[in-house]
């Protein structure tokens, strides 16, 4: 891809010859934050000073939306900041990320979610949507001020204690009921706490040999089973974070067949990696929920393909090196994922024939935007739509090198792996944050955020 511009920031971009959703090759004109025209009209209407992007061989997709990102700010700016995390997101092909609530202080008040929201606007690389905590301080004892966060300028719709399970069934029931008032969703980290005390890795053949305390699949599945029944009982909306087991897939499939309003996400790493990697005792493979078996991996892929699992969520979790350069038991859980998500999903789902690029857009963009109620994200690439889109080179091959990433985290489990696919350009609200595969410039903070319509959008 080559980009030609006459002005440092042109008012319009003509994308030449992109395969839209992997289908017909079209020109796309981006102007004033929207897709102004597609096809012959785009070429005809392009102003003479428009920047041009040669997209021959590239696929145009809606910008990816991550429902599950840890940006660590406020509190752990040594691990990541909104600025560095959203740079990583833009490079990874995202135009929106949901920042998880387990910051310090916890995002459990309107004040904290508005702070994160403003940091996102100031950074300008992607849309940063704060996730609100379900319980005050992630303490699992009383509800956080969900309504205040929903009504704040951050317009929070996704609530989660991610990292910790809302395990008290009464509290979970109340949370599910309460968020109905503002069309919110509870994103549950499904982990029965007593069954996972001290848990270090998937419980099975490998943990038996390694002598590491097991994290049994049933600890995830029993919570999901309980929560889908609660969701049905109170008529609310549940999202299951990072589904990791074949059994969880079966329960969610059952719940959907009964008409329960449940959605589910899977991480890229759970689509590719297994607990065999733990044999190295290298904590770069330590994550929660843990890497499972290859049977689980294949069940997760099939579930994502057939729609039982709705979306990809990266669970991007950067950690400073000292939290990984230590004994397994003392290491932090989590892996980076923003800059590898597209490639891992292409590798595991597209190149295996399980998903086409339309399906890719469904699980990485349309689906998560609908769950998070982001009306202007995950839209078709058509005239009049908000210009949140990316250009992807599906033929590219690259070797993962964490030291060159934009995230502060160096804890990528894909280090050294050759992966397909590369993001060549990212347009966030019409502004190119990434061009030629490199960071271009952030979207100016002065503009009206392209996010105000979020609450009003009806899917």
């Amino acid at each position, binding site marked *: 891809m080559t980009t030609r511009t006459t002005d440092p920031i042109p008012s319009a971009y003509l994308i030449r010859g992109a395969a839209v959703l992997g289908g017909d090759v079209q020109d796309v004109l981006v102007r004033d934050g929207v897709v102004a025209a597609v096809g012959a009209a785009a070429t005809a209407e392009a102003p003479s000073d428009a920047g041009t992007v040669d997209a021959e061989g590239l696929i145009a997709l809606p910008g990816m939306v991550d429902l599950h990102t840890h940006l660590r700010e406020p509190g752990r700016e040594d691990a990541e900041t909104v600025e560095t995390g959203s740079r990583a997101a833009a490079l990874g092909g995202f135009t929106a990320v949901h920042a998880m609530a387990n910051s310090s202080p916890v995002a459990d008040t309107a004040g904290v979610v508005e702070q994160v929201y403003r940091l996102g606007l100031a950074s300008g690389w992607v849309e940063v949507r704060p996730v609100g905590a379900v319980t005050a301080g992630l303490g699992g004892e009383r509800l956080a001020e969900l309504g205040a966060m929903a009504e704040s300028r951050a317009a929070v719709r996704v609530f989660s204690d991610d990292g910790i399970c809302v395990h008290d069934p009464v509290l979970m029931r109340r949370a599910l009921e309460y968020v109905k008032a503002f069309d919110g969703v509870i994103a549950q980290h499904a982990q029965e706490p007593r069954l996972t005390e001290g848990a270090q890795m998937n*419980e099975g053949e490998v943990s*038996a*040999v390694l*002598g*590491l305390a097991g994290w049994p699949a049933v600890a995830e599945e029993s919570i999901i089973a309980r929560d889908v029944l609660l969701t049905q009982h109170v008529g609310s909306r549940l999202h299951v974070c990072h589904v990791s087991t074949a059994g969880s897939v079966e329960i969610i499939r059952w719940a959907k067949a009964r008409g329960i309003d449940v959605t589910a996400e899977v991480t890229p790493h759970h689509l590719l990696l297994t607990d065999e990697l733990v044999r190295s*005792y290298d904590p770069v493979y330590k994550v929660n929920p843990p890497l499972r078996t290859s049977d689980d991996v294949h069940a997760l892929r099939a579930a994502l393909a057939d729609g039982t699992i709705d979306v990809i969520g990266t669970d991007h979790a950067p950690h400073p090196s000292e939290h990984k350069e230590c004994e397994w038991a003392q290491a932090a859980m989590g892996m980076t994922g923003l800059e590898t998500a597209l490639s891992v999903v292409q590798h595991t789902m597209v190149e295996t024939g399980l998903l086409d690029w339309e399906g890719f857009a469904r699980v990485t963009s349309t689906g998560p935007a609908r769950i998070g109620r982001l009306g202007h994200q995950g839209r078709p690439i058509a005239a009049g739509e908000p210009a949140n889109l990316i250009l992807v080179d599906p033929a590219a091959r690259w070797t993962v090198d964490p030291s060159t990433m934009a995230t502060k985290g160096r804890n990528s489990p894909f280090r050294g792996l050759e992966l397909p696919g590369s993001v060549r350009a990212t347009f966030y609200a019409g502004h190119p944050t990434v061009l030629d595969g490199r960071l271009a410039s952030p979207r100016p903070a002065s503009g009206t955020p392209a996010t105000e319509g979020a609450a009003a959008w009806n899917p």
Partner: protein
Amino acid sequence: MKHLLSTQDLSARNALRLLDVAEEMAAVGEREIKKLPALRGRTVVNLFYEDSTRTRISFEAAAKRLSADVINFAVKGSSVSKGESLKDTAQTLEAMSADAVVIRHPASGAPARLAASGWIDAAVVNAGDGTHEHPTQALLDAFTLRRHWAGLGGMPSAGSTLAGMKVLIVGDVLHSRVARSNVWLLTTLGAEVLLAGPPTLLPVGIASWPCTVFYDLDDALAQRPDAVMMLRLQAERMNAAFFPSTREYSRRWGFDDGRLALLDTMGLDDTVIMHPGPMNRGLEISSAAADSPRSTVLAQVRNGVSVRMAALYLLLSGDPHDEHDDETDDPTALILEGRTL
């Protein structure tokens, strides 16, 4: 062999080499001057993150009998309790030119981490890591068993295997690094391994292990084992609802006087009783069993020094061929000819 981290990745050839060299080392222990100059000028650090006087002094005696300089680095009361990381400690030992680090650590995999991290070049010997492995314990158990088995067959111990032997391991397999190391090593050496214990103390995933599992100790004893190894019941398991009470545990899975008598009734005159120590007398093993002529408890302790000498010697003496498992390399001969045996 660059490191000794586990028995699961120990080849039969390297295992036999260790045991054969240990036989030579045992001969040194019977001499009036129990010392070889083999590791003169080399530094062995005993890096112990857990209290274990027995294992530590066994390694210390082994290193000293090989004339190595020994530094004991007990972590309680040292800078580690102030939060120094394993990485910093390892780099400190590296800066002090440690040739071998014998590490005991409560975290499974800590020795493997030390060996693979690049923080230190020294040979790493796993002296017990969490609930993972305790390879030198399994080697001393195998050494003890091999002497017994070879003796019954009227064979020299050196060079022989455990083929045909049936070994029963009883107790808390879930949390036992001794059990794991023994399962892999004894099967590598040709023995058949049986496990018995309460289902709560057998790991999920055990079905893929190369052994037969019994929930009933008497059913297991009916298989006529040649050795019964009783595992220590850790105090912290007793209050964690793995079993109803220590008395029930003792009745069902303890090697008590009744089971000791049963061996006689069954005519199992040559069956030995093993325990890695320290023993909970009256709990997993009765005093009569522990003190009976069948008991190998003290022989195990004695053999521990020989096995650890062999491990340190083979790791530190260069032994350039062993990574390729060279048939012609005979470390026993090396000791006999090149050194001072």
